[in-house]
């Protein structure tokens, strides 16, 4: 998957749409016997590995599921505290899946408004008048592309650095927004977008963009 996610931010900086198009590759599921040789700790409402990196399980990875059942925060699906559960020898052998913790929706909301503020700062720092604002944020594993419309809506796409044609994709997402979100009379402006047709068309636009611009990026 060369296009990782799409975010749409409204004028006030609130996240109104988010779509993730990737499966994290770094996940490891292992069966353990008592005692557990990893040191776990609670961080941000999640149980993460703090020591004992091995076999694809890295420091910072969170417990994603126990015995195949996804965990909820720091408790198992049936409400038991995970650390307590793993201290009890009778629960072993246990199969635990570790991986990079995915962002919760609240975290995404916060990050979106932070980006909105950064964007404003970026434009104000500009030595020239009429700057377009932040268009791209580049790291070694992804590139964040941003397009702000004249009305203040921002379309943000996170993609593989080698993916091309994202500018056209951003314009296409703008068109899809103006068609399937705005022309839906039951959608109120600036509110979270919950339109089926918008989702469907966005997904097909992403597929087309991935096929068209993907030269050599492994999936």
């Amino acid at each position: 998957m060369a296009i990782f996610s799409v975010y749409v931010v409204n004028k006030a900086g609130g996240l109104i749409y988010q779509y993730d198009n990737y499966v994290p590759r770094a996940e490891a599921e292992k069966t353990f016997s008592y005692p557990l040789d990893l040191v776990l700790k609670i961080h941000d409402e999640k149980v993460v590995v703090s020591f004992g990196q091995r076999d694809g399980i890295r420091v910072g990875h969170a417990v994603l599921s126990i015995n195949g059942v996804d965990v909820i925060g720091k408790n198992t699906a049936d409400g038991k505290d995970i650390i307590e559960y793993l201290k009890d020898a009778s629960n072993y052998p246990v199969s635990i899946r570790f991986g990079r913790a995915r962002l919760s929706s609240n975290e995404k909301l916060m990050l979106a408004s932070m980006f909105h503020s950064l964007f404003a700062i970026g434009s104000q720092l500009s030595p020239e008048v009429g700057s377009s604002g932040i268009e791209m944020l580049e790291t070694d594993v992804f590139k964040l592309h941003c397009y702000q419309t004249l009305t203040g809506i921002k379309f943000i796409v996170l993609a593989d650095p080698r993916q091309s044609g994202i500018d056209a994709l951003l314009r296409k997402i703008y068109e899809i927004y103006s068609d399937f979100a705005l022309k839906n009379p039951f959608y109120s402006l600036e509110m979270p977008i919950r339109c089926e047709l918008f989702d469907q068309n966005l997904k097909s636009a992403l597929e087309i963009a991935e096929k068209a611009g993907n030269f050599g990026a492994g999936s």
Partner: protein
Amino acid sequence: MLMFCCCLLQNSELFTLTYGALVTQLCKDYENDEEVNKQLDKMGYNIGVRLIEDFLARSSVGRCQDFRETADVIAKVAFKMYLGITPSVTNWSPAGDEFSLILENNPLVDFVELPDNHSTLIYSNLLCGVLRGALEMVQMAVDVRFAQDTLRGDNVTEIRMKFIKRIEENLPAGDDQEERKMVFY
């Protein structure tokens, strides 16, 4: 080519009929021309705030530097795109903040005649709302009204647009507030 023209014609007739049904229903519901005019303006406003995004997404025009450019874009690009007509831009005020759009023909009023008991009805007032709503979304407060109307006996339909002010509170993040002033000739 002929079939394409027929298709367009059929579309515009349905459009005229739909708009007519809307106005007559409003007249029945409100029984007062002033109230109907207000409702049409409100409905137009709601259309305008959405239409602007469609316009910007499809036409890829950039931000206008001054009100004259705005007038040109409205007349030559927007009206053409949505109504298939190109009104002319005239009657600029000396300060350059007011102009008129002269419509030779108005697709909304094909086949329409105003009866005597609706002499103060502004039949196409929806258009005023649309223009107002659309420009408000790109941070321009404008006043739009009909100065002349063929339905009320004038020779042409004239829409008068006046620039009131820039809307600073809704500026997209980063638009430079001091530098970007509207330039008037």
